[in-house]
């Protein structure tokens, strides 16, 4: 009964994103990377001083990174949006969980309190200081079925997960991937970067796989906006993402399913 309720929530979340319900991907030894271009549609995000929009830059970088990941690494890439449409946070997380992703990378280009330069940052999920299991627990029917209905096999043991705890078991690997991404981006875009930080990021909390949020930098800074308009810069950033995934795969080869 609870499982049915959970699937209903999942399905309604996906419908709210105006996307067809994705089928679980076939069970094969190809890793699945989910890229999430932040914002979209009427959700413009940050607007740069000369008009560059966050929603456009996140989509462009995600598509460039997706192509490289497929071509260079042979991985399968799923984007949470491929056009100028918005999706709620829970719909993005639900899509990633439904396709059984191995890695989730959300991309944003945040603003800053002053119109000053702020280089890229990587975030992983870290809960608030006094969160107890009871506080983390859902207050209503927001649960979802993971193992049993996903591509992880019809024979798998049924296991219900609390929606708010989806990220909990991936905390270490998310941090590890965040550091790999930080290292590779520094090399590729020749910036120091601001660092790797743990914050209670809601989208990451709901994702059931190693997950990070990449903030490419402050779009509100005129100099950085100009950089983001440069295709070569975005291509180097995309290569940094692909190389980080390559390093991660070397440490975490995909287990047969």
């Amino acid at each position, binding site marked *: 009964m609870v499982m049915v309720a959970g699937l209903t929530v999942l399905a309604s979340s996906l419908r709210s994103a105006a996307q067809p319900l994705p089928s679980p991907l076939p069970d094969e030894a190809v890793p699945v990377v989910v890229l999430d271009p932040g914002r979209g549609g009427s959700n413009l995000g940050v607007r740069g001083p000369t008009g560059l929009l966050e929603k456009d830059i996140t989509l462009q970088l995600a598509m460039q990174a997706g192509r490289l990941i497929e071509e260079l690494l042979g991985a399968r890439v799923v984007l949470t949006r491929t056009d100028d449409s918005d999706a709620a946070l829970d719909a993005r997380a639900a899509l990633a969980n439904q396709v059984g992703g191995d890695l989730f990378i959300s991309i944003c280009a*945040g603003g800053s309190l002053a119109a000053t330069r702020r280089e890229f940052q990587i975030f992983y999920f870290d809960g608030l*200081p006094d969160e107890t299991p009871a506080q983390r627990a859902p207050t209503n029917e927001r649960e979802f079925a993971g193992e049993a209905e996903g591509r992880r096999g019809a024979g798998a043991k049924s296991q219900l997960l609390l929606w708010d705890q989806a990220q909990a078991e991936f905390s270490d690997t998310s941090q590890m991937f965040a550091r790999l991404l930080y290292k590779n981006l520094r090399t590729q875009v020749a910036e120091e970067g601001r660092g790797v930080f743990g*914050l209670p990021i*809601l*989208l990451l909390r709901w994702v059931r796989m190693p997950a990070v*949020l990449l903030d490419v930098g402050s779009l509100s800074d005129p100099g950085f906006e100009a950089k983001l308009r440069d295709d070569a810069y975005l291509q180097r950033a995309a290569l940094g993402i692909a190389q980080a995934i390559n390093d991660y795969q070397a440490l975490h080869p995909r287990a047969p399913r």
Partner: protein
Amino acid sequence: MRGSRRVRQVRAKAQASAWGWVLAGIVLVLVTGVLWWLLGAPGLSRTSIDGAERSGNTTSGEELSIWFASPQEDALVSERRRVPPIPTPFERAKVSLQELIAGPTSGALRTVSAEVKIRELFIDDQGTAYIDFTEALSQTHPGGPWAEMLTLRSILQTLVANVPELKRVQILIEGREVETLAGYLDIRRPLNTAWGVNQR
């Protein structure tokens, strides 16, 4: 007999000397007390850089510690505000937040837009403050996870520095619980004020 008279004379001299010391002590205490009163009881307006202690009430009001973002956006920094005496934690929380909204004066960065208003404020007996902001808190926010963190932590740190009784803060916008301030950080439930302590 002559020896006995000499002893009495020495004893009388010693008693006179003791009374002199006592009188001198009393005068010293009185003078110190008068000076202390005249100089406005130095020491009562003590403050602390970490915001953990609040200055005491004085006849000229009290001092609040308001926390903004540093110019490099890498920490929270405090500014002092002298305000008239505030009788209750509720009033102190409200005045502190109004000072936060009024903005910094010494080169720090504003974390909350001047357009934001406090619609309601309520503190329950468990030490949780419910603060209902106007939607400007979300709509005028510059965006991004880092800026969101600075805004939330400046609110928490300002409250905990001036109202140490508070344990948690639930942020509401236009009377409703919201998932995030501007798309990133989970604020569906009350935030522990410990999260707002400046790490620098």
